[in-house]
């Protein structure tokens, strides 16, 4: 209750700031040439450094050229050092240059590589990420500060710099995570997710290493390379999304019409992982993954999930050594495994990972769960356990440059874990 109130209050402040910085009418004269509106941040900057940029006389400056704005944007940032490089992108630590009005801030500059497989211009991942991050402004969603193109027509995204992620925290055995900490991370994740869903955006790749943490402990949803808008009637969506360990049963059944419940399921499994300190359902193939779901949560049937047999890929796994049918697990089962969460915590968890997506709670309902307003209260972000430090920077750098949907970096894949990678998106074009 108090949780949601806090969230909407802070997010509305952000929006007000935005509005104050850039009322529509002010956009007419940011460069003195009167016709080039720019993102608020650029306009602000130009107030400070605009004069120095005009090395050319008024006659020579081709202010009609979008490349010129691009150059100005580019000049706002410096590249400090490389954090990581992968097949999909290079991530550099950089900072925004200080101006008379703003101090320098660290940023992550994600340079999308020109993909050798995709020769059709801007890649879909990049377009999705830009499209949604331009719109979603929330304290629990990573901020896209600017976009520019480099010399070789590579797309560069300037992102808020965040120095660690939830996966690092989970794996760091030197840290002890209290239930209050878990509650805090869940709360922040749900607020971010609530905002996405509110704006009709599905994240479609919720997992611990896409939940980044700022140096002040604030959690932010990142990596919108698989995101899309939803709730368009009659418009099928691909079911080949979400990294396997976090993928909900309806996607294994090939559902083409699904909802925000897919993200809720993923986040429910992250919740489990935070408590177990290890992935709850680490399947090593899609088939195995689905068996794990059936064993842990129950076998989907018409009884517990009306209509499920109509889904294109419906089947019931006939596991060799387990009882063929598992009833949807009741509270006792979860109380045994997740006793630390307490009764109200288990109630919330169960609502998030119901088999039938229609029975899962929404992000909003989850935020209203009594668990959040009960003791122990969520830890303040600043007091949360932190990894931080140089290693954190490297890790997030390498995570940011991953292709959306991949679970591990390529060098990890060789380390005996097998290739547990979300299937690539099929664009339907056969390209």
């Amino acid at each position, binding site marked *: 209750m108090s949780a949601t109130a806090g969230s*909407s209050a802070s997010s*509305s402040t952000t*929006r007000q700031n*935005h*509005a104050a910085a*850039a009322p*529509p*009418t002010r*956009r*007419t004269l940011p460069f003195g*040439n*009167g*016709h*080039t*509106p*720019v*993102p*608020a941040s650029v306009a602000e900057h130009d107030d400070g450094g605009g004069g120095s940029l005009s090395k050319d006389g008024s*006659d*020579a400056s*081709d*202010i*009609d*050229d*979008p*490349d010129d*704005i*691009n150059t100005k944007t580019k000049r706002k940032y410096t590249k400090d050092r490389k954090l990581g490089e992968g097949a999909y992108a290079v991530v550099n630590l950089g900072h925004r240059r200080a101006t008379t009005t703003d101090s320098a801030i660290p940023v992550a500059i994600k340079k999308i590589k020109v993909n050798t497989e995709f*020769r*059709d*211009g*801007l890649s*879909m991942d990049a*377009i*999705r990420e*830009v*499209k*949604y991050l*331009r*719109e979603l*402004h929330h304290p629990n969603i990573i901020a896209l500060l600017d*976009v*520019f*193109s480099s010399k070789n*027509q590579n797309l560069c995204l300037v992102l808020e710099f965040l120095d660690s992620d939830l996966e690092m925290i989970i794996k760091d055995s030197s840290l002890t995570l209290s239930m209050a900490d878990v509650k805090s991370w869940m709360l922040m994740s749900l607020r971010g997710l609530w905002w996405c869903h*509110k*704006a009709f955006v599905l994240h479609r790749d919720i997992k611990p290493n896409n939940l980044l943490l700022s140096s002040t402990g604030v959690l932010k949803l990142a990596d919108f390379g698989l995101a*899309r*808008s939803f709730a*368009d*009637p009659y418009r099928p969506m691909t079911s080949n999304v979400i990294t396997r360990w976090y993928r909900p049963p309806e996607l294994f059944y090939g559902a083409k019409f699904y909802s925000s419940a897919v993200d809720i399921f993923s986040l429910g499994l992250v919740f489990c992982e935070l408590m177990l300190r290890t992935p709850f359902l680490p399947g090593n193939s899609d088939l195995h993954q689905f068996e794990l779901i059936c064993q842990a949560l129950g076998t989907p049937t018409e009884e517990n999930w009306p209509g499920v047999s109509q889904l294109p890929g419906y089947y019931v796994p006939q596991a060799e050594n387990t009882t063929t049918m598992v009833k949807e697990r009741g509270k006792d089962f979860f109380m045994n495994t997740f006793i630390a969460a307490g009764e109200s915590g288990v109630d919330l968890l169960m609502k998030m990972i119901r088999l039938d997506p229609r029975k899962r709670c929404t992000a909003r309902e989850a935020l209203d769960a009594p668990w959040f307003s009960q003791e122990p209260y969520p830890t303040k972000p600043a007091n949360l356990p932190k990894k931080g430090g140089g290693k954190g920077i490297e890790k997030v750098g390498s995570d940011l440059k991953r292709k959306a949907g991949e679970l591990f970096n390529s060098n990890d894949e060789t380390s005996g874990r097998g290739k547990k990678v979300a299937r690539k998106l099929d*664009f*339907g*074009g*056969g*390209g």
Partner: protein
Amino acid sequence: MTEDNLYASSTQCKTWSFGPSTLSTIRQNTNAAGIRSIKRGWKRARLEASSSNTPAATTPIPSTASTPTLAAATTPSIDPAAIPDPEPLTPEEELTLVHYYILRLVDLSDIYNFPSNVKSTACIFLSRFHLHHSVQSYHPKHLIHTVLFLATKTENHYIPLSDFCKRVPKLTPEAVLKHEFTVAGGVRWDFDIKHPLRAADGAIMELLTALGGVANGNGASDPGLQALSQRLTPNPVRRVQDTHGRMKAFLTKEALVSDVYYHYTPPQVFLGALWLADKDVAESYIEWRFGENSTMGRVAKKRKKDKRGKDRDKNGDKEEDATPETAKGPPLAPKLLSVVKSCAEMMTSARAYAEIPREELMRIDKKLHRCQNPQKFLGAGMALGAGLSDAMARKPSEDGVAAGKAEERKRKLDDDPFGGSLPGRD
């Protein structure tokens, strides 16, 4: 949290919504910038022409124009200084051209049978791009394919570029991608465009469901719905279905060619189109949802509601509306209806763009051609008499006309797979 707030945080509201006077100021400034760039181009070309016209010059003019053949120094040179700068385009002429190419984009999209959201996004991209980039600097004919292809990607309707190019003769992947960054940056990377289409489809579904219920004897407790049903007799369901198609036609043409996207919110545009399609349906719908008997969408008493976004009928949070002070306010319907009517009016005015005579478009394009290709007119190849009056800009010598026409035809074939005329225009 209401949908109003959500809309207010969108780039469409923050960066791409303007009052009428602001919009025309931006267009004037863009035009002025375009003129400056033309002047610079001509200045450069003059310098180049005068240096290349010296007898010793054998190097071809470094030409950005498409036909270097014309630049070959075959005839006695003319004095570039004697040729006046071309007459630049006015903001109105630029707008005419942009709207013409938006209509072309609509047709182009139909060749591929793209869904309405792809079509609409492409059109709005082009409109937004040219809001800040003069057609004198970027000819829209070079951009329409790029814009449409980009829209397929941003609307999650990607088709491989090779397939995309197959449908249009002589279209190459390189030509499509050449301007992709220019366009993407030119629309400020704001790929998410809020269309009225969702509101429209949602409202039609709502209407059909409610009226279906009335036909089955339900809804007696809702006087607004009863009134709506009565006004649309004898067959309300049929009437709404018929309206749907007409409304959609407005949304995928007039709404895109006019400036309504800059001045109104998506639901207002939808209601405007609904009003144009069938006044009775629109008015009774508004009265049902926002009238005296409605519990939602009241004018706030304490706090003046944002004039934008009255989309509370769909998925709206009722948290705020349910508070006593908002519920007590007068109904929103009269105010909303007047906004909707002015929006509809603006859409109707867009029809003029579909009726602009071909000669007028040719005249503007010719002017633009001259502006953009100074080398052709200053270069030694053209048999332009020296010392012509400024009327020359409009009336070149006979050779000039012939060459111009041939050039025009050639350009049409090269760049313009649709031959310059809109289907159904001639």
